[in-house]
């Protein structure tokens, strides 16, 4: 936070003619860009990592032609998508057709505003940030439903119907899963939740909430339409679901939204269950001093990278679920377990079970 205040003072000193409001807007803009540009770069290279990792798991090499070792592949992909023609279906509702990708990506990026990267490094410190995450995250489903409806085509509509039912049922599971975290941390502020996990690896919430952690992670696969739950796209069943009629940049925006959402869910898993920016070596006598020079944001990124890798690993491993099986998993398995675990956590709270309470 001190760093940030020096930066604000620097801006004021450099351009003193800026009055308060303009300066604040400028500062907010710079903050947003400082988050957005790295995020988009990570998304671009996450697609490269996905193709590489899945390739390796399938005994292939993956992209290695564009640039050294294929490092320029995402840039080539982006250029290709940007220069391609955007086709509008004749009978589509063009306004909604164009609104859909915006509605998909806007929440995926907006949620990042409350993510704490380190002690004091965040865009805004909202007291109800967890509610904000759930609320804004839910808007993303409108993007997919609108895309399916506005395309005026049968496969996109089928995809939209599937996504509507799926996302609604899994949001309940995710909501209940996060309730347990809130019960332990006693706050819906993401900063406070991470601070509550301070003091070493045994304080992290994945220990008392182990089944919830797994349920949250699997539900996040559904929320982001990832394999093995990618029935919304389901290439082999409904061609490409909501993406069928989209081309060029409109498709690229959906793509960006999906990957931004995936990284977001990985970060949320880390914040909720794996101690956010805290080092795993905290409170271990010797190792703590050895690793104390690493800033918290690096720990957050390392843990997030692991979860991002898990997404790819799972995609390379499992075949797609049947649609009704996904619904059964939600209502008959995850929801009962989560509700039972809420009672277990309530019991733990009542018993003042150390070290978490």
């Amino acid at each position, binding site marked *: 936070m001190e760093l940030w205040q020096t930066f604000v003072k620097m801006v004021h000193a450099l351009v003193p003619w800026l009055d308060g409001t303009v300066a604040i807007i400028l500062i907010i803009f710079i903050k947003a860009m400082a988050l957005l540009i790295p995020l988009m770069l990570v998304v671009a290279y996450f697609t490269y990592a996905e193709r590489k*990792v899945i390739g*390796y*798991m*399938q*005994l*292939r*090499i993956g992209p*290695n032609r564009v640039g050294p070792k294929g490092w320029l592949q995402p840039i080539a992909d982006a250029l290709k998508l940007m220069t391609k023609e955007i086709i509008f279906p004749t009978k589509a509702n063009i306004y909604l057709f164009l609104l859909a990708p915006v509605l998909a990506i806007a929440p995926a990026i907006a949620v990042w505003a409350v993510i704490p990267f380190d002690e004091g490094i965040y865009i805004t410190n909202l007291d109800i940030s967890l509610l904000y995450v759930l609320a804004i995250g839910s808007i993303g489903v409108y993007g997919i439903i609108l895309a399916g409806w506005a395309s005026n085509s049968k496969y996109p509509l089928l995809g939209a119907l599937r996504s509507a039912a799926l996302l609604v049922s899994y949001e309940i599971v995710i909501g209940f899963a996060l309730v347990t975290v809130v019960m332990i941390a006693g706050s819906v502020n993401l900063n406070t939740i991470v601070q509550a996990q301070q003091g070493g690896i045994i304080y992290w919430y994945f220990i008392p909430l182990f089944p919830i952690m*797994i349920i949250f992670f699997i539900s996040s696969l559904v929320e982001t339409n990832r394999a093995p739950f990618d029935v919304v796209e389901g290439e082999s069943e409904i061609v490409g679901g909501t993406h069928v009629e989209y081309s060029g940049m409109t498709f690229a925006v959906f793509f960006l939204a999906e990957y931004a959402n995936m990284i977001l869910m990985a970060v949320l898993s880390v914040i909720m269950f794996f101690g956010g920016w805290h080092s795993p070596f905290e409170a271990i006598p010797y190792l703590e001093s050895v690793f104390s020079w690493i800033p918290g944001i690096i720990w957050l990124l390392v843990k997030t990278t692991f979860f991002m890798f898990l997404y790819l*690993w*799972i995609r*390379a*491993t*499992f075949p797609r679920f049947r649609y009704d099986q996904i619904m059964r998993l939600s209502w008959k398995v995850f929801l009962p377990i989560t509700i039972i675990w809420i009672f277990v956590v309530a019991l733990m709270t009542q018993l003042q079970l150390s070290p978490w309470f």
Partner: protein
Amino acid sequence: MIKNLNKLIKNLTLNELRTGLSITAKELVNKKITVQFPEERTPISSRFRGLHALRRYPNGEERCIACKLCEAVCPANAITIESEMRDDGTRRASQYDIDLFKCIFCGFCEEACPVDAIVETQIFDYVFESRQGSIMTKERLLEVGSQNEKVINQTKLEDAKYK
């Protein structure tokens, strides 16, 4: 009852999922055997039947005597030959076309040829840039032959003892 309980425990501990994940994790670090095609190539048999070529004798005289045996044996009717008498009284092909769209690369023409004029080389990565490009004229066939004479000679020698 016990069986069901066992199954329930296995399901809840994600037993099968962990088995699957361990397999893909193992493959992740395994050595990859992909051949990087334009730079690396897999070995090709000396009997490989690729693009055709017309050969010449070491003194530069073309081998083909326009006997039309290849035209007759060709099961796909891909070969068209016109012959003429040259000034020195020998018979030579004035036209020798192979339509690569018709050709099925059976290698009969090569076997029928009494003077080893028409051969199939090991070249398989060729392109045509126009529709007419599929027709290999006599000039193009002779050019392929003169460019690859060394390789053709080598492969024919290798294969000769098995014929």
